[in-house]
């Protein structure tokens, strides 16, 4: 088996991988290698042809391909190498990775690895939608790939289950390509994507949105002929008599994204069951020394700008680890989700590092509150940070910042808690 070594190995060349690689080089790493299974860099961005990328980090309103090109250029200009058509087979403590490409199988030993594999869509099988297995059932992202990259229309008349951003984006995309979207069905009483998409993708095109409704069956033997929907109660149980049948030839599913951590689990990286991603600290370090993680592989972000920022952080700390090894940052404190908080990233904070640099904590709430709330960080029952948010929604990640002056409050503590008080 061929062998090579590098200082920082980045797995994935999506926005997280590219930013981590660029930053690792800027932070002094000598050899930075990005491995990408696709024939071109960008991750999911090449198929995200809509705009809205880079508003915060670049002050520009770019499409996915433009954002990908910008960051691929940054990574290359910084001196990172991007190996395309290269698939990682395994990651292990060391850290090291086994990859395969046209050159054969190679083992790469690295000073540090940054996991940037992104996420996958929740498929029909995971939803257990009854019915036959006709052609025409796709996840929204698969349909996006078919329409925007491969040049196929996956149907003429679409039903969409789920009101995630990808589903709403595709509702518009398909309409622009001459298809009909008969309806969007969302099981919750509110949309799960950004409100701007409700306006510019759904309402702009008069696509009916049915909340508190789910798909209970698919009709058709060889090809989808219709979907059956039902209104549901607050416990997601179908309401008798609230059934409707919608003739269509395709069903798109936009019902959640799941961080892709097969490689991480096999490497022994501790996974947070609340996120499906690695437990990380303020430097995006996982439980395995030398293995870091950034972007949607950690938890799913709303905006690519936030992915980029998490990756810049990971790249910086990965480069430092590659150069100096584990830095003896001392004990760490667990960050726990409190009232109305679903999960928080990072899950661990080192007070010694916080004393030198602020740490943003990012979280999602469990339930929306459409009026002002207080976001609080508590240690030992005492509030150390508090700020007001005009409203909170599960679909919009919230940030609360820990500052260096808070480090002293965390000394000798096991955990801190993030809460949202209505």
């Amino acid at each position: 088996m061929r062998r090579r070594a590098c200082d920082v190995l980045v797995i994935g060349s999506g926005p997280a991988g590219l930013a981590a690689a660029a930053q690792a080089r800027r932070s002094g790493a000598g050899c930075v290698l990005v491995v990408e299974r696709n024939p071109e860099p960008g991750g999911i961005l090449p198929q995200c042809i809509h705009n809205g990328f880079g508003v915060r980090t670049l002050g520009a309103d770019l499409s996915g391909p433009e954002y990908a090109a910008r960051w691929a250029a940054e990574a290359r200009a910084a001196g990172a190498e991007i190996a395309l058509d290269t698939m990682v087979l395994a990651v292990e403590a060391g850290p090291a990775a086994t990859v395969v490409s046209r050159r054969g199988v190679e083992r790469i030993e690295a000073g540090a690895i940054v996991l940037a594999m992104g996420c996958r869509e929740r498929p029909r099988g995971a939803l257990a939608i009854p019915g036959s297995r006709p052609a025409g059932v796709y996840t929204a992202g698969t349909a996006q790939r078919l329409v925007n990259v491969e040049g196929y229309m996956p149907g003429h008349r679409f039903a969409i289950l789920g009101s995630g951003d990808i589903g709403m984006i595709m509702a518009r995309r398909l309409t622009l390509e001459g298809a009909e979207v008969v309806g969007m069905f969302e099981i919750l009483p509110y949309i799960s994507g950004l409100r701007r998409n409700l306006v510019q993708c759904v309402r702009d095109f008069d696509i009916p949105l049915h909340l508190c409704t789910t798909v209970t069956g698919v009709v058709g033997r060889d090809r989808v002929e219709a979907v059956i929907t039902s209104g549901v109660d607050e416990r997601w149980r179908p309401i008798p008599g609230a059934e409707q049948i919608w003739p269509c030839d395709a069903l798109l599913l936009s019902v959640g994204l799941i961080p892709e951590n097969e490689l991480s689990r096999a490497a022994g990286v501790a996974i947070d069951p609340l996120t499906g991603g690695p437990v990380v600290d303020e430097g995006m370090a996982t439980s395995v020394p030398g293995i870091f993680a950034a972007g949607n592989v950690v938890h799913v972000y709303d905006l690519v700008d936030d992915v980029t920022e998490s990756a810049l952080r990971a790249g910086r700390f990965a480069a430092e680890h590659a150069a100096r090894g584990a830095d003896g940052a001392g004990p760490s404190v667990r960050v726990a989700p409190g009232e109305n908080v679903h999960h928080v990233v990072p899950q661990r904070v080192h007070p010694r590092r916080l004393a030198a640099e602020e740490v943003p904590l990012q979280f999602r709430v469990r339930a929306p509150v459409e009026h002002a709330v207080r976001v609080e960080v508590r240690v030992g029952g005492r509030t150390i940070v508090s700020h007001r948010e005009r409203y909170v929604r599960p679909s919009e990640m919230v940030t609360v910042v820990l500052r260096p002056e808070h480090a002293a409050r965390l000394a000798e503590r096991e955990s801190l808690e993030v809460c949202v008080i209505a």
Partner: protein
Amino acid sequence: MPSTREFICVTCPVGCAISALVEGSELIEVHGHTCRRGIEFVREEISAPRRTLTTTVRVSGGALPLVPVRSSAPLPKGRVLEIAAFLRTVVLTAPVEARQVVVADVLGTGVDIVTTRALARAEAG
């Protein structure tokens, strides 16, 4: 008679919920925006709403069958479907450059349609 209308601004991903007192296409009062662009958005929305169009255009002889494109500026909202339908009839020839003008002044709107990536010729063989 002035009336209150509710808007969700689409200028950036925040999507501020803006409440505006409106009379016809005149903006009297506006609340809920967190930056000046929200005011501009509502002003336009009540008089001449515009939207950025992003879509794809066919390419012959390219490494991929399509190239993504965008409007160089927001287009009149009411003409977006018509312009998208027109763009389905356009075929470019590879190689294509990033930011290449596909259609200048599309359908007389004064807005160009430009590519958002480069696309090389398909490799022979």
